[in-house]
């Protein structure tokens, strides 16, 4: 065959792959493969098309064929690279490139690709050795830097032992010293070199480089190098020199980077902070004089800059704050004087309040003076500047509101006053287009926070309704205000009205990586609001959608051979950029990319959402072995992760007085925020239950999984086997649970402890499980399972074990009392007219307990298992528990439905409107408008109460 002819024929296959027409790519491959049955390129392209159409098994066969032939040509290698990435077989990719490079050792491109393949798998050690090889063979200096970077990355890897770390940095240092030259002007190479010197505390060496013309020149144009320089100076305690340098920049270069001001401040107090011993009188005197000098400097800056820049004035405030801390302040009235001056100069800027917040923690004379100053200021909304000033004064006064002034009686008029101010100030923005924010928005947010604070003080949910009515109005006026949306989301959820919360969340247009930081606003404890049991999958799909971001950026190990729920391509995007950064020698970025990937892959929110999704899924799907095995594998992986909390709570401003719970705390459901501990507890509950229910023990799982395994955990218990770790209880984890979740945890533990011996006795042996898996796979794909030798076993799957079944023990009493306890919890909440989220929470946990019972007892539904092992009495005891649970849940269901019906009546709307009467009264917030909001809230509550009630009824039928 002529290469050109084949090339021409292959082109359409590439086109088909590019446009996502995998089917036609497969057809085209088949056609050509008849002609050229040995072509590796065709096979690899077909494998790619297959894996993209989720035909993992078929793809694996081709993939292994190609790998066995050890290809060396570019196009095949490239195609295979994509196939292997899709399959998560990164280690095979390394081997493939290594083999190719061995065959053509003079091919630099192959050498580089082998290096990159190692980078993709995070195999820093091999990558480092390979870089050395590349340097020897091809002589380019950049390979030395690659090696240095890899040594550092290996040292930073959490699986590297600490003593090894030091050696690696020394190796990096040796390499770097050999290649660093005085003519080097690449800032990233300098950055890399400096980071080694810093880590090894070779500060003087670092200083020599940085003080040279070369170093100065690079730092002047690279923010990253300058940042590192600053850190080194600070660590070494060269504060005075740094302060002097910073002063020059401030005075001569008009540099207003706040970091320069901090350097001057650090230098000012260095005579007191530099030694561990208590400073003597001379040090104190030195500091006092220095502070006086710097004060003059900053005052000059402030005067020169006027309203152009806030740095000078803010630096004066920071100077005074630190002087007070170190007891060298010379003028007791200065702090308040400066605060006043700041407000007068910059009070019309929106940032002013946040600027001043760090300096407001005061008492005594200061506080009295400051409050009386604020009280004396006029409020006006006649111009934008006046309005902003007025808003800032409200915020400032509220911050220092004293406990005696913070009562329901005083807060109600404050809220109404803010409302009035808001309505008046609206006229300032009446001509703005809809895409602009209203200048008065913050007044509405302040008022809403006052109402939420009132709810927190009194427990009266009417205040929340006030907040909703008012914020909905503000949101209409300023549809783009994300803060108003976020406030509404939190308050609607608190009121047990999840639907409008979701609507506002969608208006935020959360995209991409924001899903990770923001989805908690809507998915935190979402299973309490999920109507999945009654067929409404809104929340379940919201979970899946928000999780897409992780799938497209991560490597997942797939349970390939028995896969039933194919995942989308798992291409590690970030790894590609790490490779790019190596290629472009942007070393400063590589540790950041790795940190970013780690935080995203091991995001706490990711797995909180996953857990919520599992809890929703089991309410509406049939519990079978597929579901059990798939979830078990995934949850076990999650359990090994070291999580990072990326959730953005700081986005919500807090306008509650100092010392009061923050707005975020006040609006957290049940006042308990699920975190690392919560996740750990629920993972343990489900891993234990699913492990017992599953036939797949560790040996089977190992054989059925394809792709690379995640790196082993380095948690505190990593040497304890997983089976034992899931039984460990930690007090700090329990503290994150609501009381009902804790009860549930106890129930789940008792249930699992009780049933464990019977599961272990009746679980079919691995050989039987594997044989069955092979049979199923062959039926599905026509291929036997790859690389699996099923031992011949004569048994029929229920072979009687040598020893007898363990004696049937009676069910622990706690299992039955759990349900009666939950029943009385529910009734008490119902009677006390508690907010519906808590009621739903109790119902949801009770329902979950029934489902968990079913997962745990699924194995014993099989009559032959019961018969063979003589477990009849055991089966009887489940029945009793189940019957009691179903009875109790049935009542809860009825109560919820009845409550829901009560919500949807005109009376409930009328009552709502009546309660919010004080908000009405002018042309803006009319009776009809409030009625609309009332309808929205009550309808949403009706929907969730009824839906949840019906869902429970259905779960009861399915699991009875």
């Amino acid at each position, binding site marked *: 065959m002529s290469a050109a002819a084949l090339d021409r024929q292959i082109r359409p296959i590439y086109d088909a792959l590019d446009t996502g027409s995998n089917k036609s790519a497969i057809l085209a491959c088949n056609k050509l493969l008849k002609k050229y049955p040995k072509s590796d390129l065709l096979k690899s392209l077909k494998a790619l098309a297959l894996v993209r159409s989720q035909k993992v098994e078929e793809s694996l066969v081709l993939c292994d064929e190609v790998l066995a032939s050890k290809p060396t040509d570019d196009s095949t290698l490239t195609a295979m690279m994509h196939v292997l990435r899709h399959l998560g077989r990164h280690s095979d990719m390394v081997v493939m490139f290594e083999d190719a490079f061995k065959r053509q050792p003079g091919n630099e491109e192959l050498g580089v690709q082998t290096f990159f393949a190692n980078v993709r798998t995070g195999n820093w050690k091999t990558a480092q050795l390979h870089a050395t090889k590349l340097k020897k063979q091809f002589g380019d200096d950049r390979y030395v830097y690659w090696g240095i970077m890899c040594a550092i990355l290996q040292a930073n890897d959490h699986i590297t032992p600490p003593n090894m770390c030091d050696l690696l940095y020394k190796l990096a240092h040796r390499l770097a010293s050999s290649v660093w030259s005085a003519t080097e002007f690449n*800032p990233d190479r300098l950055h890399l070199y400096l980071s080694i010197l810093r880590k090894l505390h070779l500060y003087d060496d670092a200083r020599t480089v940085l003080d040279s013309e070369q170093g100065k020149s690079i730092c002047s*144009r*690279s*923010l*990253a190098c300058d*940042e590192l320089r600053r850190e080194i100076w600070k660590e070494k305690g060269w504060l005075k020199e740094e302060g002097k340098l910073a002063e020059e920049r401030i005075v001569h270069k008009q540099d*207003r*980077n*706040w*970091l320069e*001001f*901090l350097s001057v401040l650090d230098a000012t107090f260095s005579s007191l902070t530099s030694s561990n011993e208590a400073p003597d009188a001379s040090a104190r005197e030195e500091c006092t004089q220095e502070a006086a000098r710097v004060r003059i400097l900053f005052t000059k800056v402030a005067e020169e800059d006027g309203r*152009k*820049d*806030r*740095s000078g004035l*803010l*630096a004066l405030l920071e100077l005074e704050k630190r002087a007070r801390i170190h007891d060298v302040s010379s003028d007791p009235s200065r702090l308040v004087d400066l605060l006043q001056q700041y407000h007068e100069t910059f009070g019309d*800027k*929106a*940032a002013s309040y*946040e*600027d001043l*917040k*760090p300096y407001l923690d005061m008492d005594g004379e200061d506080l009295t003076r400051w409050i009386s100053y604020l009280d004396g200021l006029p409020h006006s909304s006649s111009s934008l500047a006046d309005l902003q000033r007025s808003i800032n004064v409200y915020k400032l006064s509220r911050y220092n509101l004293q406990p005696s002034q913070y009562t329901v009686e005083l807060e109600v008029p404050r809220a109404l006053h803010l409302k009035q101010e808001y309505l008046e100030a609206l006229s300032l923005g009446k001509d703005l*287009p809809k*895409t602009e*924010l209203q200048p008065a928005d913050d007044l509405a947010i302040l008022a809403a926070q006052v109402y939420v604070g009132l709810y927190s003080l009194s427990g009266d949910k009417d205040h929340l309704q006030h907040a909703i009515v008012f914020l909905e109005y503000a949101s209409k006026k300023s549809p*783009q205000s*994300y803060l108003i949306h976020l406030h509404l989301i939190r308050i609607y959820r608190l009121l047990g009205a999840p639907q409008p919360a979701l609507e506002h969340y969608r208006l*935020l247009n959360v*995209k*991409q*990586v*924001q899903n*990770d*930081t*923001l989805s908690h606003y809507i998915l935190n404890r979402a299973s309490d609001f999920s109507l999945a049991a009654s067929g409404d999958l809104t929340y379940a799909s919201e979970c899946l959608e928000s999780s897409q*971001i992780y799938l497209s*950026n991560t490597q997942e190990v797939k349970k390939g051979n028995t896969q039933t729920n194919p995942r989308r391509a798992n291409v590690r*995007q*970030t790894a*590609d*950029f790490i490779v*790019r*950064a190596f290629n*472009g020698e*942007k070393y*400063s*970025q590589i540790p*950041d*990319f790795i*940190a*970013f990937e780690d*935080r*995203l892959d091991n995001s706490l929110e990711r797995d909180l959402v996953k857990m919520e999704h599992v809890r929703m899924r089991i309410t509406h799907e049939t519990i079978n072995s597929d579901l059990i095995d798939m979830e078990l594998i995934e949850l076990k992986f999650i359990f090994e992760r070291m999580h990072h909390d*990326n959730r*953005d709570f*700081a*986005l919500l401003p807090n306008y509650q007085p100092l010392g009061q719970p923050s707005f975020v705390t006040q609006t957290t459901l049940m006042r308990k925020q699920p975190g690392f501990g919560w996740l750990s507890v629920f993972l343990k509950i489900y891993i234990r239950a699913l492990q017992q229910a599953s036939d797949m023990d560790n040996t089977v799982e190992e054989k059925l999984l394809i792709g690379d395994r995640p790196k082993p955990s380095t948690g505190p218990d990593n040497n304890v086997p997983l089976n034992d770790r899931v039984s460990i209880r930690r007090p700090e984890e329990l503290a994150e649970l609501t009381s009902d979740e804790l009860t549930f945890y106890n129930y789940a533990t008792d249930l699992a402890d009780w049933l464990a011996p019977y599961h272990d006795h009746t679980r079919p042996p691995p050989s039987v499980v594997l044989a069955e898996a092979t049979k199923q796979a062959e039926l599905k794909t026509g291929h036997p399972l790859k690389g699996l030798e099923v031992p011949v076993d004569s048994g029929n799957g229920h072979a009687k074990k040598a020893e007898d079944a363990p004696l049937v023990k009676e069910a622990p009493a706690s299992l039955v009392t759990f349900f009666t306890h939950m029943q009385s919890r529910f009734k008490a909440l119902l009677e006390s007219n508690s907010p519906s989220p808590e009621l739903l929470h109790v119902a949801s946990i009770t329902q979950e307990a029934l489902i968990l019972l079913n997962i745990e007892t699924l194995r014993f539904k099989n009559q032959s298992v019961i018969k063979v092992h003589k477990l009849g009495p055991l089966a009887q005891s489940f029945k009793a528990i189940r019957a009691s649970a179903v009875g109790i849940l049935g009542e809860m269901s009825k109560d919820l439905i009845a409550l829901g019906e009560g919500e949807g009546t005109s009376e409930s709307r009328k009552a709502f409107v009546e309660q919010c009467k004080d908000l009405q009264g002018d042309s803006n917030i009319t009776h009809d408008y409030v009625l609309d909001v009332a309808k929205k809230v009550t309808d949403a509550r009706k929907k969730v109460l009824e839906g949840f009630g019906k869902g429970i009824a259905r779960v009861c039928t399915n699991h009875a």
Partner: protein
Amino acid sequence: MSIIRPFRATDLFAFNNINLDVWTETYGISFYLSYLARWPDLCCVQQAPNGPLMGYVIGKAEGTSTEFHGHVTALTVAPEFRRLGLARSMMSFLERVSNDVYGGFFVDLYVRCRNGVAIGMYEGLGYSVYRRVREYYGSLGLGPGGKDDEDAFDMRKPLSRDPFRRSVRPNGRDMIVSAHDVS
């Protein structure tokens, strides 16, 4: 008063207060990483002393021979930190790097024709319209501003390598090109 420091990949977890603004687009992760992997020195953030990010700029260097220039891909400031001169200082940062590090001939940027406030600010910083690009912003459709909503001005400012100001022209507003003609 703010901290000026390099844009880091992990800032993507902290830029919500900036990116939830209606005019600021949140791109896929690969967008940000591709800039950081190539032009990290043209990307920086401004951070408030107490933590929150205030704004950021993302730029790149592109073009060949006398067309080699710095390009402002995204410049944004959170609503609560506007009117403090942040945009101005980030622009001057990007101009300095484009000039000193890359040796570009000019810096350019695209702005919606309707965005009078921004255009005025850029003019104040020494930028002028080089050409009008038709339908550069397609996604919003025609709003009340008509063509001004979807057309963009390509604005430029010459750097020290272009002392004769060859990269700008006085009648740029009349030079109309289609979106296909620009990269």
